[in-house]
Every structure is written in structure tokens, then in C-alpha cells.
């Protein structure tokens, strides 16, 4: 064994060499552009991660203009919501510099990402540019992209619950557009009785997916998720009634088998195929209803403010998506240039014209910008905006977990199970969760 120790040494050296080569291969070559002066981004590559959304489709068409103006190159990776979250969980967790600008959901991820240190502090950037004008952004959405007094994101899409309805079916039944939840239930029943293959009401049914749309029912019944003392309030009588109502509304007025895992694409599909009379969902998605290539009822869709419950009409009014800068990006300035361009007043107006419901007040005040919106929708958005509540899910760190807990009674209610028992166990679980989440 004369060479025994040497063998070991060589193997060790070879392993280390292999590891080093491997690691060198893994690490991305940094383009090291450091500080970039305003408007001069020649040769800089900005990596932008976006979700599948009308906004994304629109901005993609406009990006060549930005590239021409600044000389920068924008690389986009576009993913569906769930895959986008997974991507962030992996890459941001690992401290990647491969993402410069990220599109994220403030209600779901702002608290988590900001507290994890994933999002760069943009306070000086947004407040330092008067022409771009941070104060033009609606206060509600802007507060959702702020964490501990630091601005960490710029809202790009806002949304409120709006009631979509089938004008023709309502007319045939001789009914007015429902303004209260009682009327909504009655109208759904009447239309289903007249048209047995049409569901009176369709809505999200998935445990987690339904939470955001259920929130409007919850608030309008006078309930909420969390009380001022930080404890669960889903066990209140108001909340119980809301759970029961939502479940009954979906279950009672249909002859079809209810798919218990619907998010908006599945629920919208039913409406688009003319198989439902009402659906309350985000107004930012209205193009899916009015686009003839997607919807067989595109010319028969009406829009109404969310109906009143015991506590009035209380839809949510929130920032659904925002843009942020990755804290570990090496091109923060270039990233800000991109965000500034994508969220400028001109761009927002252009987007509004294409049907994107943005966060800038000036765009909503521009008659020309909203000219193409259905008049009824603009009116509904205005009313909902005034009545709106600033959150559509429990605002906690681990939102996914919270949604599953508070969503459980929704599923039970839709299935026609024991809502009270489900609420009792959900409330217990939610209180335990809240105690741990606040740590």
C-alpha cells in the first residue's frame, strides 16, 4: 500500500477539481455593468419574470420600443401563476441574480418576500422621480406593496369583485339586475328553473382558489378573517352565514356535477360556454368574457357592482400584481429603468385602453383611456372601488397555508356538508396558525 495515501490524495484532488469545474459551470457569468446612468442601458440585459396575464401580453408587444429607446435588451420568462411561485421559491431562496425584475402577487407574497429580504427597497427610486409620480398610484394598492415603511413594489394591476351576469337570461326571466345577495339567490334559482341545463350561479370551488372571491361575500355579510386582536374571526355568526350562503348559492341552482377544484379558468369556462347565469370574480379578467374568441356569450355579458349583504356591498379592491426588483440583482438601476417605463402614466393609459385595470388614478380619470371599457363595467368598477376592502385573503406571512385553512368550510358548504362543524375546526386551526405565523 505504498501508494495508498497518494491514491486517496489524487482521488480527493480529482474530486475537488470536478467539484470546482462543476461549480464554475453552475455560476452564471456576471455581466458586471454596475451603475447605469439614466437612459443609457446599451448592451445591458434585463431579465424579467412575468406571469401569464393580459398585462404581460400587452407589455411584450411594447418592449421593442423600450429596447430601442434605451439600448437595453429585455429577456422575458413567462410562467403560469403556480409555476411562477415555485420558480421564485427556488431561485430567490437561493439568492439568484438571474432575475432582475419580478412580477408578483402583493397579497400573497409581499409580506413573505419582503420579510425574507427578496425585494429591493425602492423607496428612494419611486419618490425621487416627480415626473413619474408615485402619488398618482391609488393608496390602497400602493399600501400593499409597502413593507415596514419601505416601498418594495409598484402595483400594475388592480382588481375588484364584479358581478358578471347574462343579460339575455335575466331579461327572459323578467328580472332586474340583483342588488342584494338575497335577490341574487332568487334570480339564480329562477333562471335555473327556466333553463335546467344552465347553472344559476357558478364560482370558484377550489379550497384555496375560492378564498379570494368568497371574501366579498364574507365582508358583505359583516365578517372578516382576522380581528383587531390578531385572532381568527371566521367563527363569527356573520362568517358562518356567509360560508353557508356561498355553498348554497353554488350547490342549489345547478343540475351539473360540481367540480370541487375550480379556480377562475374552470369557472369562467362554464360561463363562457353559456352554462351559467352569474359569476362574481375579478373585474381585471373581464376580457375573458367579452372576447368572442374565448366566450360564446361575449355580447350577452353584463357587469354589476357586488350585491349588498347585511353589511352592504363590500367587494375587495386590491393590487393583484406588482413589479419588484430582486434584492440580489446586480442591475438594480436598469431594473428600475424598466419598471419606471412599464408603469409610467403614458404606458398605464395605453394599457387601460387595451382593457388592463391599472393602479394609476390619472388613467381612470382619462375619458379617452377608458372609452373602450363597457360603460356598465366602468360604473361597476367605480362603485366597487368606493366600497372596496383592501384585502381579499388573510394578510399573513404564510398565505398559502392560511388560505387552505379558511377555505376548508367553503368546500364543505359547496358539498352540502356540516358547515358549523367545518367552521369550528377551521377556526381552531386558524387560531393555532395565526399564533405561529406571527412569531
Amino acid at each position, binding site marked *: 500500500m505504498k501508494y495508498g495515501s497518494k491514491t486517496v490524495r489524487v482521488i480527493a484532488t480529482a474530486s475537488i477539481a*470536478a467539484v470546482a469545474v462543476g461549480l464554475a459551470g453552475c455560476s452564471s457569468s456576471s455581466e458586471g455593468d454596475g451603475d447605469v446612468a439614466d437612459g443609457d442601458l446599451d448592451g445591458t440585459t434585463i431579465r424579467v419574470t412575468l406571469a401569464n396575464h393580459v398585462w404581460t401580453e400587452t407589455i411584450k408587444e411594447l418592449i421593442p420600443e423600450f429596447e430601442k429607446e434605451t439600448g437595453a435588451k429585455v429577456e422575458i420568462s413567462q410562467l403560469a401563476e403556480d409555476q411562477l411561485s415555485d420558480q421564485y421559491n427556488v431561485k430567490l*431562496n437561493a439568492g439568484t441574480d438571474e432575475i432582475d425584475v419580478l412580477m408578483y402577487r402583493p397579497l400573497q407574497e409581499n409580506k413573505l418576500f419582503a420579510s425574507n429580504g427578496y425585494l429591493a427597497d425602492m423607496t428612494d427610486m419611486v419618490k425621487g422621480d416627480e415626473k413619474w409620480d408615485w402619488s398618482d398610484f391609488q393608496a390602497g394598492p400602493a399600501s400593499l406593496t409597502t413593507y415596514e415603511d419601505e416601498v418594495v413594489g409598484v402595483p400594475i394591476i388592480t382588481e375588484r369583485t364584479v358581478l358578471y351576469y347574462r343579460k339575455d337570461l335575466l331579461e327572459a326571466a323578467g328580472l332586474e339586475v340583483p342588488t342584494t345577495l338575497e335577490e341574487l339567490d332568487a334570480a339564480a334559482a329562477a333562471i335555473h328553473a327556466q333553463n335546467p341545463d344552465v347553472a344559476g350561479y357558478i364560482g370558484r370551488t377550489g379550497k384555496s382558489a375560492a378564498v379570494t372571491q368568497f371574501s366579498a361575500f364574507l365582508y358583505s355579510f359583516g365578517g372578516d378573517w382576522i380581528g383587531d386582536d390578531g385572532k381568527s374571526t371566521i367563527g363569527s355568526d356573520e362568517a358562518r352565514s356567509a360560508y353557508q350562503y356561498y355553498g348554497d348559492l353554488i350547490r342549489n341552482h345547478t343540475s351539473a*356535477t360540481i*367540480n*370541487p377544484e375550480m379556480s377562475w379558468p374552470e369557472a369562467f369556462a362554464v360561463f363562457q360556454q353559456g352554462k351559467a347565469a352569474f359569476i362574481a370574480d375579478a373585474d381585471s379578467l373581464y376580457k375573458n368574457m367579452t372576447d368572442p374568441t374565448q366566450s360564446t356569450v361575449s355580447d350577452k355579458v353584463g357587469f354589476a357592482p357586488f350585491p349588498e349583504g347585511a353589511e352592504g356591498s363590500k367587494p375587495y379592491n386590491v393590487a393583484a400584481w406588482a413589479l419588484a426588483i430582486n434584492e440580489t440583482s446586480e442591475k438594480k438601476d436598469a431594473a428600475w429603468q424598466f419598471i419606471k417605463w412599464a408603469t409610467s402614466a403614458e404606458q398605464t393609459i395605453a394599457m387601460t385602453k387595451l382593457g388592463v385595470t391599472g393602479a394609476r388614478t390619472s388613467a381612470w380619470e382619462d375619458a379617452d383611456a377608458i372609452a373602450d371599457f363597457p360603460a356598465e363595467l366602468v360604473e361597476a368598477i367605480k362603485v366597487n372601488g368606493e366600497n372596496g376592502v383592501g384585502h381579499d385573503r388573510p394578510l399573513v406571512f*404564510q398565505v398559502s397555508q392560511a388560505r387552505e385553512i379558511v377555505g376548508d368550510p367553503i*368546500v364543505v358548504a359547496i358539498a352540502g356538508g356540516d358547515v358549523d362543524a367545518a367552521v369550528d375546526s377551521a377556526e381552531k386551526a386558524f387560531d393555532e396558525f395565526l399564533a405561529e405565523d406571527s412569531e
Partner: protein
Amino acid sequence: MTSLQTPDDVGTAERFSRWADRHRKWLFAGPSIAFTALLLVIPLGWTLYLSFTDAKRSVRRDFDFNGLENYLGVLTDTERFWPSVWRTFAFTAGALTFELILGMVIALLLWKPFRGQGIVRTIVLLPLVATPVAVGMMWRLLFEPNIGFINEMLSWVGIPPQPWLADPSTSLATLTFVDIWQWTPMVALILLAGLTSLSDEPQEAARVDGANGWQRFWYVTVPLMRPVIVAAVLLRGIDALKTFDILYATKGKGGGAFHDAETLNVYAYGLSFDYNEYGIASAVLILFFLIILAVIWVLQMQRKGRES
């Protein structure tokens, strides 16, 4: 007489070449050993380490050791963990049993040459080459309760629509069916390879002794095929235990609204990517790893027992 060179006289290159000659096997295997270590040992070690900590939300945050707390929490969790253990095994056992039986039937049918054999073999193998996620999407559409083709087909013969994947009581069985549909061809392929390598003599001897078809199959073919069958069970069984793609593609995160298709893999994925509970997710994965090791060990011991 030429004097012997002392080691000092030999050039470095010469010495290295001699050394390399003597240690060829290590030198050639070195890079792949290092690579395996890098890809297997490091992630496993990191997972093991995380499983003893309270890491959550982000692994870039501070986290502390919490001993066996995660393991205790997981092992006493009768709401999500144990049901998913049960589902993992039910799914695997159900799928494996049918795949073996059907695979054997198909292999026996394809064993003897016949006209159009090539085309039939290709058709039988088609499900195998499809991407599992695409397979999941396809079956999800076919099984859709209201607009799916399966219910449409059932309605032709007067059977009312079934909820299939949408109902917690039928979804796991439906998914087991999808797994059987996709992976039976692989089992058939392995068994067919085994069958074609069997010699004809034992069969002929049995025939001369007056054994009928079933007896020849049960007392001659199956015992001779045992090593191949065990290999198929091992390969397919481990794979089935780890199934993720079709479950996720059809039922999404958490294995459906009632976690009705949540196996250990899906559960660990949800803990990690949806809940950001990295410590607990790691503990589940380590337990899962131990379970798979135990299954392999039992199977191997059984094989050794029989061989001896």
C-alpha cells in the same frame, strides 16, 4: 549488469504514468464518483440537516436546530402524513398488481411471432413514450365530469355520469388506473425480454410429461421468470412509490381539495413549495427515503432467502 534505477532517478512523468497504470480503475471512476457524491450526497446531507431545524419561509433567514421536533410532529400527524403514507402504498400496490398481471398477459401474447407483430408492439408501447404531465392533462380532460369523453361514452350505454377525478372517493382509484394505463407497457417489455431469453427445453419436457398450458405457465414459466419478475417489481415499485407528475398534473397542489390524491411526494412538495416549511418538508422526505430503503431491503432479503 545494468544498475537498477532508484525511484529518485525516474522522471515525474514516468512515475505518474506508472502510478496511473496501476490505479486505472480509480482514475477512470474518479470523476463519476465525484459527480455522484456531488449530486447525491450533498443534497441528501443538506436535506438531513434541514430536517433537524425550524427552517421556514426562506432558507436565507436564520434558523435553529430543533432536534427531533419535526420528526415527532410529522409522525404524530394523523391528518396529512399518515393518510398520505397509506395512499402512497395503496396507489403503488394497486398499480403494481395490475401492471404485473396485465404486463404478463401482454408479454405472453407478444411472445410467439405472429403477423403484424411490429405494429402491435408499437401500439402497445405508445403510452410509455408519452410525457407523464401530458398524460395527466389528457386524462384530466377525458375524465372531466361534465364535458369529458368518458362520461359521454358511458351515457351511450345509459350509465349516469361519474365524478371520476373530482370525487375524493374515486380519484385515487382513477389515478391508479391512469398509472396502469401508462406503465403496463414497461412491465410487459421487461417480462417479454425475460420470456424471449428462456430456453425451450423445460417447456418441451413439461409438454412431454403431459402438462397443460396453465400448468406449464405456472410451474415452468413463472419459476424460471422469477428473477425477471422481481426486477420488474423493484423497478416499477420504486417508481410508483415516487409518482408525482400525473398526480400533480391532474389534482394540483395538495392532491386535490380534500387531499384525496396526496401521496408522500405530493405532500412534501406542498410543504416545501406552497407552505415554505423547509424543516418539516425535509423531515417528511427523509422519512420517505427511509421507507423506500426499507421496502427495497425487504424485497432484497426475500430474494436472497429464496435463492439460498
